[in-house]
C-alpha cells in the first residue's frame, strides 16, 4: 500500500484526506466485517447442530484402526477409574481371537484380566503398543504375550505392514510424547470444534460404501472381555471365505520365511522393558493348525526354528516360555485363529501357568 501522498487535496481546507479516509474506513468497516460475521454465524450454527446431535455420532477415528481406537479408550477408562487389571494379554490377532479375559479371570481366582491384543498388527507395533501405551497405563503384574512364527519373519518389519501407519499416526505420536505443533493444533481443534471432532462420522454417509470391511469387529469385544470369534466353523459355511482369505494372508506373511535377527531383538527388548517395570512375562507360542505349519516354505523345519528362537529370546530376557503346539482344527475358526471352543481350551491351558506367574509376582511385590 502506498500510504498517504505528500501533497493532499484536503490540505487546502485544513482537513486532511487521511483523516477523511480514516473516518470513511470506519464507516465502511461494519460492511467489510459483515461477510465474516455471517460466515462465522453459519459455522456456529453448524457447530451447535453437530453438538446437539453428537450422541448419534461416533467418536472421532484418530487411531489407525477401529480396534486400536476402541482398546485405547478402554485402557484410558480403566486407568482413570483405577480399574487396572493384574493380567494383560497382548499379541496379534491370534491372541486377540483366542484370549478370553473373563474366562481366564474366572479360572485364576482373585484376578482381573484385559485383552490388549490387536488384530492385523505385527511384532514391532505390538511391542510399541505394549510398552508405550498399555503397560504405563494399566501397570499389570503379569503380561501374557501371544505370538506365532509369522512374527519372526523379517517381512513384518516393512512399513507397509501397518508399522508405518502406526508410527506416523498423529495420536500415537502424541501418546508417545513425539507430537509436532501440527499435532497439537489438531488436538486443539478436536477439543474445541464439534465439526472438526466429529468429521469422520459426518462424512461416513459419503464414504462408507467403499470402506474396507474390518475382519475383527471391535463391538465383539466390549470392555475387552468378549471374544472375537465364537462359533465360526473351520473352513465351513459362512467362515469359508474368511478362512480362505486368512490362509492367503498367512502364506503371504510366511513367504521366504527366515527367523529375523531384528525381530528377535525387538521381542527381547519388549520383554526386558516389561520386566524392568516390574511385571512378569509369559511368552506363549500360540496353538497352531497343521495347515498353518504347512504354509511355511519348509514346513515343520521352519516352524521348529521359530520355536527355538522364541525359547532363546524368552530365556535371554527372563520370560517363561510355553508352547501348546499343534491343536486339532475343530478348535479353530480358520487356519490361524481359535474359535470359542479353542479359546476355552487355551484358558484351561494357560490358567495354571498364569496362576504361578501371579503368585510369583505377588511374592515379589512388597
Amino acid at each position, binding site marked *: 500500500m502506498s500510504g498517504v501522498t505528500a501533497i493532499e487535496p484536503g490540505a487546502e481546507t485544513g482537513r486532511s484526506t487521511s483523516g477523511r479516509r480514516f473516518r470513511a474506513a470506519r464507516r465502511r468497516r461494519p460492511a467489510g466485517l*459483515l461477510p465474516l460475521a455471517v*460466515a462465522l454465524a453459519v459455522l456456529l450454527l453448524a457447530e451447535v447442530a453437530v453438538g446437539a446431535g453428537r450422541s448419534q455420532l461416533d467418536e472421532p477415528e484418530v487411531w489407525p484402526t477401529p480396534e486400536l481406537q476402541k482398546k485405547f479408550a478402554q485402557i484410558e477408562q480403566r486407568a482413570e477409574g483405577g480399574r487396572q487389571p493384574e493380567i494383560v494379554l497382548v499379541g496379534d490377532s491370534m491372541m486377540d481371537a483366542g484370549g478370553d479375559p473373563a474366562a481366564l479371570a474366572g479360572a485364576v481366582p482373585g484376578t482381573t484380566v484385559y485383552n490388549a491384543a490387536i488384530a492385523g498388527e505385527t511384532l514391532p507395533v505390538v511391542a510399541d503398543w505394549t510398552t508405550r501405551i498399555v503397560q504405563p497405563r494399566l501397570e499389570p503384574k503379569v503380561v501374557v504375550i501371544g505370538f506365532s512364527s509369522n512374527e519372526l519373519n523379517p517381512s513384518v518389519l516393512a512399513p507397509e505392514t501397518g508399522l508405518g501407519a502406526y508410527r506416523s499416526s498423529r495420536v500415537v505420536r502424541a501418546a508417545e510424547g513425539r507430537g509436532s505443533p*501440527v499435532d497439537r*493444533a489438531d488436538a486443539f481443534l478436536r477439543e474445541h470444534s464439534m465439526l*472438526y471432532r466429529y468429521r469422520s462420522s459426518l*462424512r461416513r454417509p459419503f464414504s462408507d*460404501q467403499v470402506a474396507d470391511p474390518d475382519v475383527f469387529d471391535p463391538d465383539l469385544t466390549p470392555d475387552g472381555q468378549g471374544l472375537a470369534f465364537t462359533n465360526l466353523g473351520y473352513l465351513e459355511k459362512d467362515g469359508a471365505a474368511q478362512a480362505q482369505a486368512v490362509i492367503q494372508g498367512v502364506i503371504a506373511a510366511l513367504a521366504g520365511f527366515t527367523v529375523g535377527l531384528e525381530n528377535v531383538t525387538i521381542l527381547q527388548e519388549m520383554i526386558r522393558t516389561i520386566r524392568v517395570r516390574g511385571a512378569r512375562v509369559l511368552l506363549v507360542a500360540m496353538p497352531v493348525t497343521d495347515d498353518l505349519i504347512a504354509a511355511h516354505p519348509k514346513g515343520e523345519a521352519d516352524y521348529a526354528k521359530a520355536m527355538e528362537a522364541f525359547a532363546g529370546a524368552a530365556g535371554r530376557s527372563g520370560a517363561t516360555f510355553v508352547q501348546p503346539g499343534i491343536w486339532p482344527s475343530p478348535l479353530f475358526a480358520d487356519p490361524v485363529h481359535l474359535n470359542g471352543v479353542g479359546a476355552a481350551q487355551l484358558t484351561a491351558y494357560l490358567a495354571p501357568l498364569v496362576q504361578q506367574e501371579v503368585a510369583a509376582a505377588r511374592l515379589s511385590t512388597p
Partner: protein
Amino acid sequence: MTFNSLQYAAFLPLVLIAYWMLGRRAQNLLLLAASYVFYGAFDWRFLGLLVLSTLTDFVVGRMLEGTDDDGRRRRIFLVSLAVNLGILGFFKYFDFFVTDGTRLLGQLGIEVSPPVLRILLPVGISFYTFHGISYAFDVYRRKIEPTRSLLDFAVFVAFFPQLVAGPIGRAHLQLPQFGRQRTRPDWPEARRAAVLILLGLFKKVAIADMLAPYVNEAFSSPETTSALGLLVGVWAFAFQIYGDFSGYSDIARGSSSLLGISLPENFNQPYLSRSVTEFWRRWHISLSNWLRDYLYIPLGGNRGRGLLTYRNLLLTMLIGGLWHGAALTFVVWGGLHGLYLAGERRFSRVADEDAVRRWSLRKDLVRTFVTFQLVCLAWVFFRAESVGGALGYLGRIARLQGGATDRSAVGLLVLSAAAVLLIDAAQHQAGDHAPMLRWSPAARGAAYGLMIIPIVVFSGGSPVPFIYFNF
C-alpha cells in the same frame, strides 16, 4: 507439503509475515529458501536436480547474450534442451521406454533384457523443466533479455506456489515481477486471493477427494460394476480431476497473489466448452499455451498445407499426452485429443466463433454435452492402468454390462457436478474467478461458511495428494 495440509496452513502465513517485512532482494532470498524447503518437504534428494536445471538455464541465458553467432547460439540452446530433457527423460521416461520398448521388440521376435531401474519420479519435474526450457527458448529466439540475477531466476524456476503443479510459468511475464519492488496487496486484492484459496480448497477437498473413492472403485473392479456404474465412474473422474487440478491452480494463484506475484489463469470453466478446440483454450491453459508456442508453432503450426497442420496438431497432442506420464494410456489420451482437434479443424469452423461468442443455454447445451462426452471418452484412457484396461472398461459400457450400481455414487456425482457447474456458471456470468465478491455481504458470508463446512468435514486423515503431483 501439500496445499491441503495443516503444514501449509502454517507455512504460508509464516512466509507472508516475514516476506512483507523485507526489501526486494531479501524477499527473493526468502522466497528461494521457502521454495526449497517446500520442495524438500516432498523429498530433499531431488533438490539437486532443481538446482542443476536452474544453473544450466541461467548460464545458457548468459552465454546466449554474449554471442551473435547463430550457430553458436543454437549449440548453446541445445545444451539447455539436452539437460532439461535429459533430466526429464531419465527420471520420467527411462523405465517406460525400456519396458515398453522391450515388449515391442519381443513382439517382433527380438529378445533383449535391458535393466529396469525403478527410478523414483521427482515431484514437479515436468513443470520446472518446462519453466527452464521456455526461458532458454525465449532468450534464444531473442524474445526476452536474459536476466543477470541468478537469484531472480532461481526464484522464477522454484517459486513454491507453482513449483510442483503449475501453472507453467513464462519468463517474460514472471521474471520482471521478481526483478522489481512488489506492492503489498491491498484489502480487495488480499480478499480476492483468500477467496481463490477457499474456492480451491473447496474444489479439492469437498469435491475431488469426496469423489476419489468411487472413481477408484469403478476403475479397480470394472468387472463387478454395471454399465451405468462405470459411466458414473468416468463422469465422476471428470469432475474429480477438474476439482483437483483447478483447485490446486486456484490455491497457487491465491497464495502467489498474497506475495504480490501474479500467475496466469490455468482454467476457465472448461466443461462449458462447445468444442474440443475450445476445451483446450479453457483447460490447463498454461500447458496448451506452452505447447502452442514451443512445439506447435516451431513445428510449422497451421502455416503449411492442410496435412502438415494435422500432423502438427497430432504430434503436439501426442507429446502433450506423454508429458503427463510415461505410459501408453497418456499417449492414447493425447492422440485422441489430437484427432478431435484435427477433425474439428477439418469439418467445422466452430472454434473461431466460440472464441468470441458467449455461452447460451438454449443454443449451446447440446454441443457442450457432446464435447463433454468426447472429453470423458479420452479421460477413460487417462485414468485407466493400461490401454487394455481402458478398452475393457469402454467395452463393458458398450455391452451394457449388468452388475452393481452404487446409488450413493450417483447421488454424490449429481451433488459434485451441480457444485462445480454452479461455480463455473457464476464465474462465467460474472467474468470473474471470485464471483462471490460481487454478491451482497450477507450472501458472500453465507457462501464462505457453506464452503468451509465441507472442507472441515472432508479434510480428515492424511491429506490426499493432488493428482498432478504424479506428472
